[in-house]
């Protein structure tokens, strides 16, 4: 069918790539040694079995600290909680009138980063509401609770898993929730490297845009699934870069963008597009029965208002 609009703008599911080598860390604007130490101190850090510490504690605020790390992560759950509060700031995801609140899939740490990223992809600006007002993070949260589905619904997930040609499509075994898990941490790690230990949600909008652009254009490389426990003051390279797997920064960017735009435009029944703000921005009237009396009024702006699926269903219930 000549559905060119669909064909041209359909967001293709991103491809998860393999490592292309060493992490490329761009010049940090705060690359003096103090800033660098802060990067290291705050850097995503895992205590490995090799150091004799249980591999659970992370120095990333918002993640539970069950054990002290040897290098300055939150020593106690209380400290971790304080850092959560710092990172999530005013916690906009708990405001704004959403029903129920809370997250079915994300932990708040993840949600804060996704919400901050969505707010840059579809910003709140003089054209009106953006991803934040639309509740995009809640839409994404609900989708990721469907553990075995991809952006396009059910996926074939039997092996063997081989890296194919681009024409063969995404071949990764990584589930969508795990892509987000690795991607969010990778994004946070990258932000801290670039901006002296400040996490993504703490950055200014321009700084967040730079992180997103680096992901989009591939300046940021692989968001790796490999855990290491480097000494506090230096970046240890992985034992073998070619052993790293995960999701490329670009692929994760494309996922974030696809889900954000879907959450901005999907019917509000799915948790985003609250008050139909996405539709109102472009003038899409939503779940209308039709336009039989309008279709031949060429060029005349439609004035029939907006309707959500919930309103349609309420009208239809018990009908026919």
């Amino acid at each position, binding site marked *: 069918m000549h559905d060119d*609009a669909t064909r041209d703008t359909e967001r293709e599911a991103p491809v998860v790539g393999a490592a292309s080598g060493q992490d490329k860390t761009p010049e940090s604007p705060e690359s003096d040694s103090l800033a660098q130490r802060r990067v290291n101190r705050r850097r995503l850090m895992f205590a490995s079995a090799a150091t004799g510490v249980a591999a659970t504690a992370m120095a990333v605020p918002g993640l539970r600290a069950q054990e002290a790390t040897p290098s300055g992560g939150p020593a106690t759950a209380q400290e971790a909680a304080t850092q959560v509060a710092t990172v999530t700031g005013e916690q906009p995801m708990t405001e704004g009138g959403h029903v129920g609140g809370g997250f079915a899939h994300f932990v708040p740490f993840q949600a804060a980063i996704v919400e901050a990223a969505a707010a840059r992809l579809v910003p709140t600006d003089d054209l009106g509401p953006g991803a934040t007002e639309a509740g995009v993070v809640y839409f994404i949260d609900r989708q990721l609770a469907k553990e075995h589905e991809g952006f396009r619904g059910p996926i074939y997930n039997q092996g063997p898993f081989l890296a194919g040609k681009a024409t063969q499509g995404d071949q990764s075994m990584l589930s969508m929730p795990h892509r987000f898990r690795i991607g969010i941490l990778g994004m946070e790690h990258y932000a801290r490297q670039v901006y002296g230990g400040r996490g993504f949600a703490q950055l200014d909008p321009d700084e967040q845009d730079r992180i997103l652009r680096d992901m989009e254009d591939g300046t940021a490389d692989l968001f790796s699934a490999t855990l290491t426990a480097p000494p506090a003051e230096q970046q240890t390279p992985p034992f073998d870069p070619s052993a790293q797997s995960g999701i490329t920064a670009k692929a994760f960017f494309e996922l974030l963008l696809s889900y954000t735009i879907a959450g901005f435009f999907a019917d509000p029944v799915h948790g985003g597009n609250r008050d139909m703000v996405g539709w109102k921005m472009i003038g899409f009237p939503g779940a209308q029965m039709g336009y039989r009396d309008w279709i031949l009024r060429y060029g005349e702006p439609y004035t029939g208002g907006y309707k959500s699926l919930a309103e349609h*269903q309420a009208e239809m219930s018990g009908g026919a």
Partner: protein
Amino acid sequence: MAKLPKVDVVCVGFGMVGGIVANELTKHAPNLRIVGLERGPFRDTYPDFLEDHFDEWKYAVQSELFQDLSRNTITFRNDMKQTALPMRQFGSFLPANEVGGAMVHWNGASWRFLDYFFEYRTHLEQRYGKDFLPEDCTIQDWGITYDELEPYYDQYEKMFGIAGKAGNLRGEIIPGGNPFEGSRSNDYPQPPNKIAYGPSLFREACENVGYHPFPQPSANSPSTYTNPDGMTLGACDYCGFCERFGCHVGAKASPIVTVIPHALQSGQVEIRQFSNVFRINHEDGKVTGVSYYDANGIEQEQPADLVIMGAWVLENVRLLLLSQIGEPYDPNTGKGVIGRNYTYQLGGAGGTVWYTDRILNRFMGSGANGFCIDDFNSDSFDHSALGFIGGGNIACNNTGARPIQGSGPLPTGAARWGSEWKKATKEYYNRSVNFGMQGESPAYRQHYLDLDPTYRDAFGHPLLRMTFNWTDNERKMVKYVAEEALTRIASAMGGQIQEVRDTITDYSIVPYQSTHCTGGAIMGADPSTSVVNKYCQVWDVPNLFVIGAANYPQNGGYNPTGTVGALAYHAVDAIIKKYLPSPGMLA
């Protein structure tokens, strides 16, 4: 495994083919008992689509009505040297998973192939010489002519209430219709739809350039319509939710509002939902029935005297291979038939015009709501100096502009995110008109279907493997039509920004293109180069019929659905008049 009591007829898949065949059989053979085995559920106009269908995320993006890929997909590679890998998510095409088949979620563009297209190889060789065809091109005549099929096109159009305007009525060219079409015995049963603003601008431009625009033949019923069986279609609301959605008012012609409910009324038909056929059983050159997994996944054997394979294209071919019926095609020797001549639908030549001085209400429309030209389809134009064969229908349809997938397109260079993206999307969402070519897909020796050696479905059976790519012939076709036709049309349409796409590279399984997969169980006059005769009866297996787009020796420059309808009516007419009185191979 249970062996069930024998029935007269089993339909494998219960979409358009199963519905048409079962419905006609019940009318003419009142003693037959017919079982339809369908892997999906029955979703009806009410309550399913009336109460729910305006949900782009659920239906269009998350694939509510499509084949469950977690259970069964295909593997794909561009050429024989590659390792085929599974299509893990949609996807280039969208097979259905429901009673009524892909017509439940189609747009409704309903075509007849051009008359000479049924003897395409003969036609091209006569006009241009035998050396004109591209290397390794294996296009061939169908073994049936347009004139033989015409009454059945007519029957299909009446049963499904197709709307349009004849361009060639019994040999007379009618202004405003398609002057290139084959002679029709009757006009369309319904007049054209109310057609939206964007396509009207396209029509005007085509007229100004000197082309011959005509209304898109459409299965979106413009009025309430009662078909010859007494089944009624609703009137289209132009809601803009056709492709990937069911219809909330039963206005989009499909088996669930026509042939299937009528067939069920007879009491002769039983449809078993959630039933996955995995083998056609056969013995001594005759089929004995089918084996399938029932709704609980339990293996069942259903004996039958007559089996109609009306699954979707690719599953029909896979089932033949899994059942070891017919000789699998070998691309190295050119021998064998099952899987031969797999073809698709050529896209890639398209245009977009953006108007900053008007809005277009792009969200109002229906799946087949527009205008078309055939001036560059097939052999409507002289190819002798062009170095390629084929062409395509060029169309402009207002299919609706659901915002997740259709908030664009934006002009090249527009931002993909951020405030600039918002600005561009707000500015252009309701101001673009898209049009493009649906091109022919010639068959080639090296493009085929077989069983994958590695990957399996949820039940442990091999997946189908597709080996396919575009060739230089198609790249030239896209380039030529884009430069020759689309740029002229874009220019004549005016608008402040115009873009034309004129380049294709390799075929990719990733972006949606069309659900117009064709071939693999092709029809013909010669058993050494075809799977079925002109009645869709498998050579040497008289009680097995394979009906559908898998029968096409190559795909034309049109949506394939209308011709499936005609082939099904032609086949069942032969079954009723010739096969049932005297079972055996039909001559």
